[in-house]
């Protein structure tokens, strides 16, 4: 900020100023820049004049019970006579600590508390209001400020282990600002990138900046964003489209959801700039229907933009028109593929088509269309304001900037992390993620969802970028990281992904439709117990493994789209690093992690069994034999692995082998 005025003010000339007047200061005649500046300052919320309470109410927060926390807060506050504000914010990314509640008192730094279940609300609020410092030991961290008083012995957010190694550009305001307030977004310098673009830059200049920054598609494609825009810009047409892919179909990925829920304007600003760069006058945001909260926030944000005339015709007096339309996905993972997405918008079955022609040349309704992922677009405004050199100073040789990862699975600190490219996997899993939970042994981290592969202990020092991951048979994907420990079976994981692919395959091309079905069959045979076996299954099992690699080749080489081409990856990756598990399933007929239930043997420990006969009574297939008061035993040929005996034994005498 220069001379006390937010930089957007520099670009507000003529009628644009009027728009802001009518929205920011209704009823004020002839407002001056100073009036606007003051109003924007209050909207910023860098300091407050009364207590503010922020509740993390993204989907994670809601799932953890944020609504009940809010109710408890209202209950506590209704007995007090002072003025206060409760703001529901999005995900800051600390999923493991939800519900999160921040308390921002006048004159003091904003303070963050985690795991704030309803019973914890009153003690926290009362203690803080009475300046009782003992409550501070429960705080997670505090936010730094220029002029406010710091809390004693509470780490700053930048020093908090989870955030220490992160570099937050896309997520910098998620979980902090009010996602429903366009005013706050503008006050924090929002839409000044757009204003700068429309006032000072030509479309080709915008494309060049983005290309020079080194930004690559964050949806998994990894293609140079600026280059893609140029293809579309250079294709003459009476109508062009920009499409934001917010379908986020990868199971285990929720980065886009967080951005759209927590900071929708960041996405929208990037989208409008991008549309200008290719001269598209219509933009679509294709968002999955399973994200109702994100859709609601997006709708509000877009409505506000129309009200403030930052959408519609002649934005900022530049002559540029743009309309944004929301299209809800209807439940098809394959619609994350560009041409399938386009067909879905056109009201057809979401089936991909051969490329070329590429969408940038002939896309939606046959017109040049560019499709970018949410995270890609969320980077745009920062690059415009801070320059391409700033962006490509982060990261490593072939991948610039930051990447948002969704950490989940068997790890202590689940959540969203944004790190510079080139950071090692070990740092993410152990330094930021805190390592496996419950003191279990780390086994692998799956990256790239159903198109990706696993990173094991031996490769944990790998620097994360688009190319390095390919060398170990994995893929960046959209950024979902699922951690697995010793209790997970990698054959089961491969089967899980193949089930997913089979369910989501569009069915158009033979290698994907039939090939993945055959792979699924093979995996099912491997994990099937002897009781369910029929006829030639045992022979087929042996054949099957040999076939897996051959089939994988065919499917990879000949499938029509990326879904099919990368479908074999999870199998190939687990086969490479966990061949021993596969062999245990095939040759020893057992599942070492005890997950594939049909291959697990239930056993009664003689020394612990007192012969109460309860398990034998409960057994639905009469597989347990024994006389009263004598140790019982389980006939594994009859056992159907339902686990009832394990549940009812009060003496811990039954184990899974």
């Amino acid at each position, binding site marked *: 900020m220069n001379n006390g005025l937010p930089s957007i003010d520099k670009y507000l000339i003529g009628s644009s100023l009027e728009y802001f007047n009518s929205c920011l200061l209704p009823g004020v005649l002839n407002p001056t820049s100073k009036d606007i500046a003051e109003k924007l300052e209050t909207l910023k919320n860098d300091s407050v004049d009364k207590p503010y309470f922020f509740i993390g109410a993204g989907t994670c927060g809601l799932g953890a019970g944020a609504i009940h926390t809010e109710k408890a807060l209202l209950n506590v506050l209704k007995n007090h006579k002072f003025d206060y504000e409760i703001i529901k914010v999005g995900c800051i990314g600390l999923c*493991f600590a939800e519900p999160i509640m921040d308390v921002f008192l006048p004159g003091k730094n904003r303070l963050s508390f985690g795991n704030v279940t309803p019973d914890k609300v009153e003690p926290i609020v009362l203690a803080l209001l009475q300046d009782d410092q003992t409550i501070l030991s429960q705080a997670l961290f505090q936010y730094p400020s220029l002029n406010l008083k710091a809390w004693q012995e509470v780490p700053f957010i930048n020093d908090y282990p989870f955030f220490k190694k992160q570099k937050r550009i896309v997520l910098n305001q998620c979980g902090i600002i009010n996602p429903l307030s366009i005013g706050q977004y503008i006050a924090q310098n929002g839409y000044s990138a757009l204003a700068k673009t429309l006032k000072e830059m030509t479309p080709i200049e915008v494309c060049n900046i983005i290309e020079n920054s080194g930004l690559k598609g964050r949806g998994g494609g990894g293609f140079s964003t600026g280059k893609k825009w140029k293809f579309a810009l250079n294709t003459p047409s009476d109508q062009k489209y920009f499409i934001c892919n917010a379908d986020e179909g*990868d*199971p285990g990925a929720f980065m886009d959801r967080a951005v759209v829920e927590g900071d929708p304007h960041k996405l929208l600003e990037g989208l409008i700039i991008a549309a200008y760069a290719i001269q598209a006058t219509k933009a679509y945001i294709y968002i999955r229907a399973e994200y109702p909260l994100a859709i609601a926030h997006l709708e509000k944000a877009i409505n506000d933009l129309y009200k403030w005339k930052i959408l519609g015709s002649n934005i900022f007096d530049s002559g540029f028109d743009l309309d944004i339309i929301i299209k*809800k996905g*209807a439940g098809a993972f394959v619609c994350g593929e560009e041409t399938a997405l386009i067909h879905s918008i*056109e009201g057809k079955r*979401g089936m991909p088509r051969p490329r070329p022609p590429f969408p940038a040349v002939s896309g939606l309704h046959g017109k040049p269309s560019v499709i970018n992922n949410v995270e890609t677009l969320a980077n745009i405004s920062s690059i415009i304001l801070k320059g391409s050199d700033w962006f490509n100073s982060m990261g490593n040789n072939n991948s610039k900037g930051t990447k948002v990862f969704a950490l*989940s699975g068997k790890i202590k600190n689940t959540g969203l992390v944004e790190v510079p490219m080139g950071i090692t996997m070990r740092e993410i899993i152990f330094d930021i993620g805190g390592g496996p939970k419950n003191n279990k042994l780390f086994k692998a981290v799956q990256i790239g969802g159903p198109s990706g592969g696993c990173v094991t202990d031996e490769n944990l020092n790998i620097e994360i970028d688009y190319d390095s991951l390919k060398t170990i048979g994995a893929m960046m994907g959209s950024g979902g990281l699922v951690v697995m420990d010793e209790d997970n079976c990698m054959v089961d*994981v491969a089967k899980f*992904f193949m089930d997913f692919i089979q369910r989501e395959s569009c069915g158009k091309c033979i290698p994907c439709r039939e090939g993945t079905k055959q792979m699924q069959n093979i995996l099912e045979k491997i994990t099937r117990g002897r009781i369910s076996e029929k006829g030639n299954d045992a022979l087929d099992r042996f054949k099957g493994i040999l076939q897996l690699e051959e089939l994988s080749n065919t499917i990879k080489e000949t499938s029509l789209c990326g879904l099919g081409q990368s479908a074999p990856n999870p199998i190939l990756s687990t086969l490479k690093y966990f061949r021993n598990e596969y062999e245990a399933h095939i040759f020893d007929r057992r599942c070492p992690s005890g997950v594939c239930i049909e291959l697990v043997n239930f056993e009664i420990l003689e020394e612990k069994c007192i012969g109460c006969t309860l398990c034998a009574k409960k057994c639905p297939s009469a597989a347990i034999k024994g006389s009263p008061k004598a140790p019982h035993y389980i006939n594994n040929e009859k056992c159907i692995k339902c686990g009832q005996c394990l549940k009812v034994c009060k003496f811990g005498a039954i184990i899974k082998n």
Partner: protein
Amino acid sequence: MSKPNTNTTIASLLLKFPKANRGDLIPILQYVQDSEKFLSKSTMIEIGEFLKLPLSKVYGVATFYNQFKFHPPGKYQIQICRGTACHVEGSSTILAALISDLKINAGETTPDGLFSLEVVACIGACGLAPVMSVNGEFFAKLTTEKIKHIIQNFRDKEASNE
């Protein structure tokens, strides 16, 4: 049993789409299903005639996407997430518990019309796996014990409403 709202005819719903063309097919199907809870044969016929689309195409599009239902769902639509993180955290055990409690399989509705059970693609709350949603309300960090309570709560709610 959740009966479709027979006062709202499809025609009046379609008024919301004055200049509709093929690109509006999916939004129309979504909008109509939101109101009617599912897509019946006659509904799809009306939509086809409205958009001047062959019915085989309407049916072909509707059956392609997971979201569309062709039979009336239960009053409480339970959707359990089958994402990677949820699977790794044992969502199949949760599903088994639901199946055993409700005595229906995934894709079915209980005979009293109270609950329908569906397995859906990733809800996006992976940090709090396993997750399920009931009529849009999210429940996270599920265990088989929690499931029992949640279902019972809904049953009690129904009983007190009657």
